Every structure is written in C-alpha cells, then in structure tokens.
C-alpha cells in the first residue's frame, strides 16, 4: 500500500486544523488494528474470565463480562476515529502533523529545525508491517510523531526529511 494522497477529500471549509492548500497523507489502517489488538486482548481475557466465573459459580457473573465488552466496543470505535484523524503533509518548507478527535493538535516543524529523525517499530508493529517516524528538534516540546506508516513510507519519509533538513539546517 503506497502513500494515500487525499487531495481535497479531508477538507472542510474554514477548519483551522485542516489548511486548504495542503495535500494530506493518511496513515495505514493497520495502525488501528495494532492499537485495537493491544487494547482488546486484555479486555477479552477479562470478559472470558468473568464468563468462566459465571459457568463455575453463579450465572449472574455473566453480566460482569458485559462491562469489558462495552469498553471494548467504545474503544474500538474511538481508535478507528483517532487513527483516521492522524495525518501528515510535507510542504515546501515544513512538515505538518495533525491528530486527535476530541483534543485536536496540529504541529508545524520547519525542516531546518530538525535535529534527527527516529524510525521505530515494535514486535506487533513489525508483524503488521507498520512503523513510527518521530521528528526531533532542539526543543523537548516538539511532539511530532507519525505512527502507522508502512516501512517503505517510513524509510522514504526519513530520507526526504533528512535531505530537506540538511538543505536548510543552519545551526541552532
């Protein structure tokens, strides 16, 4: 799956978090799967434990299995929306990263300010074929991370960022 360019499809008129003249890239939906697995497995185990308890003692305990399942359903839906809200855009001079549904954020990092770029992938990420790119500036506050990229996308982004950063870097 190559980079998905959403020309215009994510725009809403006058939304401050979605500038008009920018083409956004979305991240892989496999990120949602990874997050759902990480969140869902413990909840399912919890529900199964409650069901086991119900089978062994009283059937009333079966109701207790409902709570984790409800939480699971809610988080399932939420994660889908959160992952869909993550986007990044490479402009001529800076990188935009946006995320969040309820609490939204939009980060701008000028290429010249990047000190280094990290690419990370945990075991689950690797199994699902996704990676996370994190940009670092000289500020500990710059929170510009793009999760859920395919390894090819991540490598390409890392190289482009490094190249553009080098072209514009001028000390601190």
């Amino acid at each position: 799956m190559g980079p998905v360019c959403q020309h215009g499809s994510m725009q809403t008129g006058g939304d401050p978090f979605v500038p008009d003249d920018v083409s956004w890239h979305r991240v892989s939906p496999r990120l949602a799967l990874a997050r759902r697995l990480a969140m869902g497995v413990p909840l399912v185990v919890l529900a199964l434990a409650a069901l086991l308890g119900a089978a062994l003692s009283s059937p009333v305990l079966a109701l207790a299995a409902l709570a984790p399942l409800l939480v699971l359903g809610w988080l399932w839906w939420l994660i889908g929306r959160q992952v869909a809200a993550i986007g990044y855009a490479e402009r001529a001079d800076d990188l935009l990263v946006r995320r969040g549904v309820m609490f939204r954020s939009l980060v701008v990092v000028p290429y010249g300010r990047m000190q280094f770029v990290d690419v990370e992938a945990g075991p689950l990420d690797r199994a699902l074929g996704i990676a996370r790119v994190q940009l670092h500036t000289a500020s500990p506050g710059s929170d510009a991370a793009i999760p859920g990229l395919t390894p090819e996308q991540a490598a390409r982004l890392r190289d482009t960022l490094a190249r553009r950063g080098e072209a514009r870097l001028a000390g601190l």
Partner: protein
Amino acid sequence: MSSPAAVPAAGEGQWQRLHPLTPFVRGWKVVAALLVVIGQQRGGELVRTGIPSRSEALITLAVIVATALLGGLYAVLAWRRARYRVGADSLQLRTGVLFRHERATQLDRLQAVDVVRPLLARFFGLAELSLEVAGGGDSSIRLSLLREADAQALRSTLLARAAGLRFEGDVAPQAPERAVLEVSVGRLVESLVRDPVTVLGAALVTAAVLATIWFHLPAALAALLPIGFGLVGILWSRFTGGFGFIVATSPDGIRLHHGLLTTRSQTVPPGRVQALRLRQPLLWRGRDWWRVEVNVAGYGAGRNKEDREADEHLLLTVGTRAEALLVVSLVLTDPGSQSRPATYDDLSAELIQAGLTGRGSAAGFLSSPPRARLLDPIGWRRHGVRVTASVLLARRGVFRRELDIVPHERTQSLALLQGPLQRRLGVATFVLHSTRGPVTPRVQHLPALAAAQLLHQQAERATSARSDSAHDGRWMLGR
C-alpha cells in the same frame, strides 16, 4: 606527575591535567556524607546508651578512615586519568577510571561558558569551567577544577576561538568587561519578601497560629514544619542564587555574575539566547519590578538535580522595568554584529507596555475574544500574541504577569491545540516550542482561524528568518 599545575591552552594538541587539589576538594563530599549517615545512626544510640565502648568507637573511626582513604584513592585515580586538550576548534576531555570516557566538542557549537566556584573551591582559589553545547541530553563539558586565573584564561581562549577570532600566542587576551547593572542586597531581600512563596508561608503560619489559639490545636504548628522548611529552602536558594547579581557586557557576549556560596560567572555569546520571559509576581507591581529568565540551549540538561539549578536560567533576578528592558535589549540587539537585524529596534515603547501590562487588542495584539470568558473568566483579557518583523511576543497572567519574547530565527516548532470546549467557542491554543528552559510560550484561547493563520505565517517566518541570517555561529567573523 610531570606537569603538576594545569596550564590551560599552553599549546595546541597538548593534553593538560586538572588542578592537583581537585581530588581533595571534590572528595570531601563523600566523607561528609558518610559522617552524616554515621551521625544519624549513632547519635540516637549515644543519647540512649551513653558513651560507647572503646572498641565500638575504634571500629567507627576505622570505617570512616577506610572510606576516606578509598574515596580519596578513587578521586586521585580519577584526577590522574582526567586530561583535557584545547584544539583549534574543539575541546576534548578524557575521564574515567574503570570506564574510559572521551568527549570532544566543536567550539562553533558553543552556547555558553560558565565559570562556577563552589564554596570549598573558593578557599583554594579554584574554579570549574563548564562549556555548554547544544545537545539532546547532558552535553556540557566540565573541567573541574582549575586554578581560577587559568579557568578565566581558558574561557577567553575558548570564546575567542568559538567567535572565529585570530589572536597572537596560545592564550587569548581577556575581553574587556563593562558592568551594566548590579542588584543590591536590599532589593533582593525586599523582592523575596514580596515573593508569593513568602506570602504563602506567612498565610500558613498565621492560619496555624490562629488555629492554635482558637481551637487549641498545637498540632497545626507541628504539621506546618516540613512545609515551612520547604518554603524557607526555596527562598534561601533564590537568595543565594541571586546574591550579588551583576550584568555586564563584553565582546564575548553578555556576562552574568551571581551567587553567595557557589558563585557563577556565565558568558552567553550573542545570538545564543533562544527565548526570554519577563515575569512580575503580584506584589512586585508596586515597585514595577521584573524578573528576566532565558532559555539557552544546553542549560538545564544537567545530570543531577544539583546541576539543574534554576539560577543558570536567570538573566536578571530582580530589576526595575527600565533595567529589565535594558538587559532584554542587550540580549536581542547582538551588539557589533552586522549580519543580523537589530531585533530590539522594532519593539516600540507602546508595544512593550501593551505586552507587559496591557489587555485586549491594544498595540495590535491578537487577543482572546470575549466568548473565551466562559473558559477563563479572569485571565482571558491578558492572553495575547503579537508578531513584529523579528520577534514574537506572547503575554499572559492577570495576577502574575508574564511576557515571552522569541526571535523568529529561534523558533523550533509550533503547534495549535484545541479541546472540545474550545472547539465549541471557536478558539484554540497557540504553542511555540523553544529549547529546554523556563520559557514555554503558549497563548490560550485565541480565535481559532486567526491562530491557525498565525501558525502558518510564523512557520514561514521561522524558515525565512533563518535563511536570511547566513551565520554559522562564529559571531566575530566578517567584522
């Protein structure tokens, strides 16, 4: 010991030793800590059982002596191992007894040079030279300890090399220094009396005394003791840190001297200040006093808490408005440099006034709209941001006023944040990321669309301001 005394910069490429008294001065801490531990453990027993037996006393003494010897031996080994070398454009330091460590630093990355003199070192005329470079974590090089004159000579040499200056011989001449202002002890004490910490402490003590008198609760006073110690500790560290505060200028940059027990002489070359904050607690308002703090890359990244003292971020511990603005102008104008715009010039008196004390949209500030009152009923009028040709001003605080100043070319990155309530009201929070330090510019509840516009304009300005100043950090080149 072929070269007993450290002679800094006696020749390029020569490895130098630190001062031979170093192990003694630095090693005493181990012994002192041990004495405290033994004192705590044995002190209680002494009270209960009286004078200890002779053998017991001997054992304790033996433990102390053995630890002192071991610690001393290690300190001597560490001293024998430590070497430093000043190259044409780098400073190298080798340390480590078991694990060898060598660090080399490019001088053109230099952000600040401090000469720190801890109390005990002062008795011997010794000083620590610490060189800050901009790194992710703790990236400073500390030469501890040197003779004070050597530390100062080395400082001028390092600064001259970092500046790109050529000079005769191995040691650069001392840059002339001109004191600009001095904070008197009386003013420092009064500023601490008017500090919110003092006010809080006084309120707590009053409440406890009243509780004791009216409700016969002497426990209230006892409960207050640890808090009281904490508050006194804060005030004491502010007093010792800000004692004898002198701001001076030199061709090497701005120079700050301060400290009561441990004295610190900081040199921050031109263009190294990343961001500034002027701050005024409520009770300083009558005197119109301000404190000025700065972000300098490398400051505040020390290994332990002791190194991360807040006082290295001070530019002025307390001063009148005129004095505060004077030091701000010293930092922002980059005296002598022609390749940069004189940043301070486009800050008019009206603009400064509006930033320090103003409300609403006076002097062109972009401020919170009245609908933000729902989110911040008191502070909304003060939230504001203003952009000039070279800096961004961000102000906040009704009771404790704050004004942040960030040059465009020092902007690291920017962010726009919006929570659900802010979204309903059509406002958003504008955040500017600077390097590590006390200045964290953030303006709450701006009109969302205007804030987004500002975000993109500011990103553009950050990029273009940087490409204008074709500057590799060597501030004396091309003069």
